[in-house]
Structure formats: C-alpha cells, structure tokens
C-alpha cells in the first residue's frame, strides 16, 4: 500500500480487509488495508467482484477472513466473530435505491433515524438540507425520479449514523443529467459528515472525480491500489480499460466563468484551461479533470490558433512504446501534474521527440460535466 498525499488520510478510519468468498463459480480473494477518511474508489469491469466485496463488508455475503474498521471487528473467522449485517455500522447505498415503497420519503428517513445509535451526530435537518430533499418529504417514493430516489437513499443511509459508507454503483441506473447532479452530493456528504466511503463504479471518470484513493479489481483480485492520481496512470488500469480509456487526472482552480460560452476558466499549475460546463461552478473551487490520452495530441512549436482551445506547455518525461502497438504513450509534466498523450510511434519519430523536450499538449476535449470539490 502506497501512502497517499491526501492529508485527511493521515488520521484513523483504517479499513482492514482479508477476505475469501466463493459465489457460485466466482472466487474473491482480497487482502488490503484501505486508508480513511475520504473516498476510496473501487474500480473494475462487470463481474470483477466489486459488488461482492461490498456485500462481504456489509455482511450480506457469507465469507471468511477479517473485516476490521479501526478497532471494531466485524468479521474475524479465526476468532469466531461474524457480526450480522444489522449490527455493523455500515451505510449501504444500492444501485436501485431500495426505498421502502410502503413508506413516504419522510417515513423512509424516519425508519433509519429511529434505529440509529443515540445521540445522533448527523441530524435530520442537516441531512435534508445537504441533500436538498426538504421539498420531497411528503411524497410517495414510488413517484420520485431516479436522481431523487438516490438522494433520499443517501439521506436515509446517513441518518443511520454509519461509520463507513458503501456506495454500490449509486449512479449507474441514472441518466447523464441525473448523474451529473448526484455526483456533487456524494462528494459533499463525504466531506461534510467526515464518513469514509467505498465507492464502486465501472466508470473510470466517476472514480477519477470522487476518489482520493483507488483500488483496481479484476477477477476477484486486487490489481493495483494507491492514490487515485497514481492508479489512473498505472499500466494495470490500461490493461483493464483498454488503451482508449486510459488517461490522467488534472486538478485546477476555477478563476472565472464565461456565461456567454458556458466555459469555466481554470488555473492549472499557472496555465489556463477553458472547460465547457453545463453545471454552474464557483470561483476558487477546485475541479478534477480526467483527460483521456487519446484526446491529447502534441506539438513541438507553439501551435497556430485552431478549434483546439486548450494548449498546455510541459516537459516530456517518458515515452512508452511497444513493438506490438503502433501507438506511444507520452507522459508530460505540467508544473508538477502529469498529462498523458497517445500518439502514433511514427509521430514520435517524425517530431524527433525525446524526454526532457519542451512540448505543447493540445487537449481536444476535456470531459468535465461534474465533480465539485469544494
């Protein structure tokens, strides 16, 4: 386990997992310590065991081994300890929300609060305020939109005063617009209530936006784990997602918003980036941008004005090539942050690229439609 640079990870909430589970033909075998608080992303393809792992931690899935949060032992097969799900202080947010259809929104929230340990440090008012659900309280859960359902489900989970949040693809059943709306809420509750969270997703952008720490899972085994920025650049991720999906995470600070063209102006290590955004941004907030390698091309001289608006100057730090692929992966240092670009090997030869060269990175599209990090 690599130490992360996130200062919040220095304090407690260490989750120790040593797990073996067999579900039909599938084998899960995990041995890992996850630092907290903050959000830990659990990324993998469908069937990689992400949900099974979450279900083992929650106590829904029978398994052997250890699940320990700080000094609370939830499972220790060797010592015969196995707390049933309802005695584990976990909050589970399901892909399909699973609100109780016989109760109103208020009834669902009250169900959780009534069973929560006292005194409740997370209050009813705080939750409905943070998640903007005060207007829904009297509604029947059957008529809520997908995004509203998940907000209510998040609220219900928070009111159970969990020590750990397990988010099992809470966005995957939503349309793009609802996803974009919900993502900031997840970030906000983890920050506001200081609850460590495990966030499962098969969309790397979601993990890139939310997670401080990322674990890659494949066929029930951990392939890589560490700070999200490091894992996003790891070769294991490329193996998992294929070349087209690999990329790097840039962090920028909002310095302006152009409402005419709906562009957020970002300061990224002293250079500026204009990012189209549908959701409003506030000045001085930090945004994380996941930029795919295939969306970055390079030039050795300052390019002429073109439709590509974002040009970052940096230093070429690595050229990754293999004989099997016609492409090369370039790693570019932009004032301490890294960008990766995917160009043909022929281009590398033609431009006569070498490490330590000064290089212009042309960013075609910046996939930013969410990801608020106040």
């Amino acid at each position, binding site marked *: 386990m690599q130490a992360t640079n996130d200062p919040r990870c220095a304090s407690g909430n260490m989750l120790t997992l040593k797990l073996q589970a067999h579900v039909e033909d599938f084998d899960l075998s995990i041995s890992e310590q996850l630092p907290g608080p903050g959000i830990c992303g659990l990324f993998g393809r469908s069937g990689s065991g992400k949900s099974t792992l979450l279900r083992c931690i929650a106590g829904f899935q029978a398994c052997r081994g250890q699940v320990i949060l700080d000094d609370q032992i939830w499972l220790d097969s060797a010592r015969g300890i196995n707390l049933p799900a309802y005695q584990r202080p976990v909050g589970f947010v399901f892909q399909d929300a699973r609100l109780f259809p016989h109760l109103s929104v208020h009834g669902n929230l009250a169900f959780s609060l009534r069973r929560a340990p006292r005194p409740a440090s997370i209050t009813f008012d705080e939750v409905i305020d943070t998640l903007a659900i005060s207007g829904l309280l009297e509604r029947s859960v*059957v008529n809520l939109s997908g995004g509203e359902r998940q907000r209510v489900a998040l609220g219900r989970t928070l009111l159970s005063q969990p020590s750990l949040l397990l988010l099992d693809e809470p966005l995957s059943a939503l349309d793009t617009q609802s996803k974009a709306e919900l993502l900031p809420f997840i970030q906000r509750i983890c920050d506001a209530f200081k609850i460590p969270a495990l966030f499962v997703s098969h969309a790397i952008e979601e993990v890139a936006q939310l997670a401080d720490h990322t674990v890659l899972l494949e066929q029930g085994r951990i392939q890589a784990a560490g700070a999200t920025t490091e894992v996003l650049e790891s070769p294991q991720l490329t193996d998992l997602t294929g070349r087209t999906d690999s990329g790097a995470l840039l962090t920028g600070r909002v310095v302006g918003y152009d409402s005419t063209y709906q562009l957020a102006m970002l300061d990224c290590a002293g250079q500026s980036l204009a990012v189209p955004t549908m959701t409003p941004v506030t000045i001085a907030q930090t945004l994380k941008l996941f930029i795919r390698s295939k969306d970055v091309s390079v030039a050795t001289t300052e390019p002429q004005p073109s439709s590509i608006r974002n040009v970052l100057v940096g230093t070429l730090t690595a050229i990754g090539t293999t004989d099997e692929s016609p492409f090369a992966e370039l790693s570019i240092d932009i004032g301490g942050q890294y960008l990766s670009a995917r160009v043909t090997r022929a281009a590398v030869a033609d431009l006569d690229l070498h490490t330590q060269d000064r290089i212009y990175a042309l960013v075609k599209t910046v996939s930013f439609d969410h990801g608020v990090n106040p």
Partner: protein
Amino acid sequence: MIEWSAIWLTLQLAGVTTCILLFLGTALAWWLANHDGPLHSLIAALTAMPLVLPPTVLGFYLLLLFSPNAPLGQTWLALTGDTLTFSFSGLVFASCVYSLPFMVQPLQGAFEVLGRAPLEAAASLGAGPIDRFFNVVLPLSKRGFLTAIVLTFAHTIGEFGVVLMVGGNIPEQTRVISIAIYENVETLNYAQAHTLAALLMTFSLVVLLVVYAGNKRPPLRIG
C-alpha cells in the same frame, strides 16, 4: 328455521384453524421462500398434497392417526382426556392439514416477490430479524396475507369430506354447515338445505370478490 349451531360451529372451526395456520403457515412459507435443495422440494410437495388428494383419502389416514390406539391419538388422549376422533379438536387438527396449502402458497408467493432487496436495505439501517419481519415484510406482503387468510377461512368453511371421515355428525361438536346440508338432503329436507346452501354460496362469492378486488392493482414496485 336456520340451524344456528351448525353455522356457529363452522365459524369457530374456520376461525381457530385460520389463527393456527397463520403462525404455522407463515413460518413454513418463509422457510420455503428462502431455502432451496432436496428437502425444499419434499416439504413443498407435502404442503401441496391436500390440494390433489381426495378429502376422503386424507380423512381416512387422519382417522387412523387420531385413533386412541395410534401414537398421536394416544398422546392426545393422555394429555387432554379427550379423543381426537369425533371431536372438535380433531376437526381443528384435520382442518389445519387440509387447509395448509391455502395459507402457505399465497404467503410463499408474496415472500418470493418481496425478495432479499428490502430486507438487506433494512438490515443495513440497523433493523434486526424481528424488526424486519414486522416493519418491512409484513407491510409489504399485506396483500399476500389478506389472500391467504381469506382463502384459508373460506376453504375451511366449505370442508366436507375430511369432516365426515374424522368428525362424523355430532350436533355442536362436529356438525358443520356442509354436514348439515348433506344430512338435510339425505332426509329430503330441501328447504333447510337450501337456506344453508344459499348462505354458503353468497359467502363464497363475497369472499372471492374481496380477494380479486384486492389483487386487481399491480404489485408495488420495490426500490
């Protein structure tokens, strides 16, 4: 003249049987809905037997079981001082066997539709097993419970063959409506038979209307 004692006895029998089966049937239906394997198939088949067996067959074997010479009949006699054959307690016993599938099957169906999802959600919110049953399973299966209770009650009211075999025709003990109708017809007392028969017809129609009207709405979506 309406034979009130037969009606009262029938209602008592149906009421007691429904109450007993509500507990036994719920437990059995829960087990059947949540377990799988060879034992599951055997129990499911045994539960459904009264649906396919002629009541006389069921009654015949129950009569043998209830006999004071058989272990069950003997134990009962020793415990209560009363026989199971030709007695009200014997009828309750027999009705519980006979009406079992009518309680178990609608409940099992309701529990299966419910699935694990809402129970896991409740468990993650700190609800223990009993809490989950009363505050999640029960309210979400209320239609299943309504159907099961109504069908069990109505089916016990209409019971004939089994009663005749194990209970006979003792006024205020085992002479239920269906037995009274049978005897009235046998003794050519048609007017009396008509009154009771029409009563049962009306009752059955009302009961089925209640069940079908209650089940008309699509099942609630979970989640």
